[in-house]
């Protein structure tokens, strides 16, 4: 019930954990007139305190990892995390880098993964819809396995 109400107006917070900016541009594309995600009540929140969905892009380097964790702790619950792009899924081409010790889902719980380098805006919207579909059962996706 609570989660259903939240997903009627998911306000998204965009956190970049050291990305190359490509995924970030694709996220901004979703908000432009062509895709217009405000139809679903999605708004871009400026402050983490207003967020319902955190979109994380980038490879979570040593500097950013602590900050991403802090962001997750500062968000009012229930909150969902969407990992966007190859880097945040599996660190992509930085998998052997000294600076990227762990992927995002070892730091905070991730609900939806959107692969691609960068993912198309259609793929990001499909990912958010998948989040809505999965939570209709009342469980968070990671409990659904």
């Amino acid at each position, binding site marked *: 019930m609570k989660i259903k109400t939240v997903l009627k107006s998911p306000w998204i917070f965009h956190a970049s954990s050291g990305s190359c900016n490509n995924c970030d541009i694709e996220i901004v594309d979703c908000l432009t*007139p062509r895709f217009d995600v405000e139809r679903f009540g999605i708004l871009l929140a400026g*402050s983490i305190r207003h967020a319902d969905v955190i979109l994380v892009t980038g490879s979570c380097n040593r500097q950013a990892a602590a900050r991403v964790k802090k962001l997750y702790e500062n968000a009012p619950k229930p909150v969902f995390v969407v990992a966007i792009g190859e880097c945040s899924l599996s660190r992509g081409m930085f998998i052997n880098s000294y600076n990227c010790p762990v992927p995002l889902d070892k730091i905070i719980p991730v609900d939806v993964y959107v692969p691609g380098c960068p993912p198309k805006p259609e793929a990001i919207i499909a990912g958010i819809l998948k989040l809505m579909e999965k939570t209709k059962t009342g469980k968070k996706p990671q409990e659904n396995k």
Partner: protein
Amino acid sequence: MVILGFIFTAIVGLIASWAERKITARIQYRVGPVLLQPFYDIAKLFVKQTLIPEGSFKPVFLAAPIIGILSVIVSSTILWINCVNMKYTFWGDLIVVVYLFMVPSLSLMMGAFAAKNIYAALGAAREMKLILSYELPFILAILVPVIKSGYSVRFSEMLQYQAAYGPFAMSLSGGLAFIVAVVCIQAKLGFVPFDVAEAETEIVGGVLVEYSGKALGIFRLMKNMLLAALPVFLIMIFLGGLGDGFLGLFFGILKYIMILLLIVVIKNTNPRLRIDQAVRFFWGPVTVCAIAAVILAARGL
């Protein structure tokens, strides 16, 4: 009566905020949200967790939204009573309403200073400067209908005067004062070009940066209710009230939609002003216009 006023204002305000978002979307060639979207937003904020930031002054932080919304409820109830039944009004209700419309801005400032956040403090400082700049022309503009109705500070007498001699906005001084008042309520509502206090792209939400869950929901509801109450206030003192009877009510709603449309179009066709530009704008041309309107009204024009 107060509860009825609250429910009615809240519904009108939420629908008005939907209209505002929808018109904005259409101006930008988008589709825009569904009709119930503002209701979903408020419902969502009320089920979310309310976080109290570490180091904040908790009583003031939590009391601020409640003080803000209570003042809007009381002021809008006074306005509705004047539209429904003039017997229950009192002398000087105009002054009370003008004071109560200032409290939401003060409550935002209180909450922001209590939050112990640098962005919130910056937003609150800007809000304070904005209040100092727009209150003077706003009160001068309200002085014009007061002078024209024979120095009356009671809504019912003003409405009766307008019913007999036509709306104040039709005269030269009234029209000038009406334009000034529309610009001032743009700032009171915190809309672009005067949204420096909560500039999302600049100081990440400003005064509201630390608010979450129920407290944020109350603040949002308060702003949406102001969007219902302030245009009605202007209609009552400048455009001859909402009117009674079926036809009168129809024209009243038309007046409300016209003012709402005007506000939204101003919002969408202007960039954000810096705080110094906003203060210069209000203390310069707007105050001069307001003073001119008062002088014209005193000379009977």
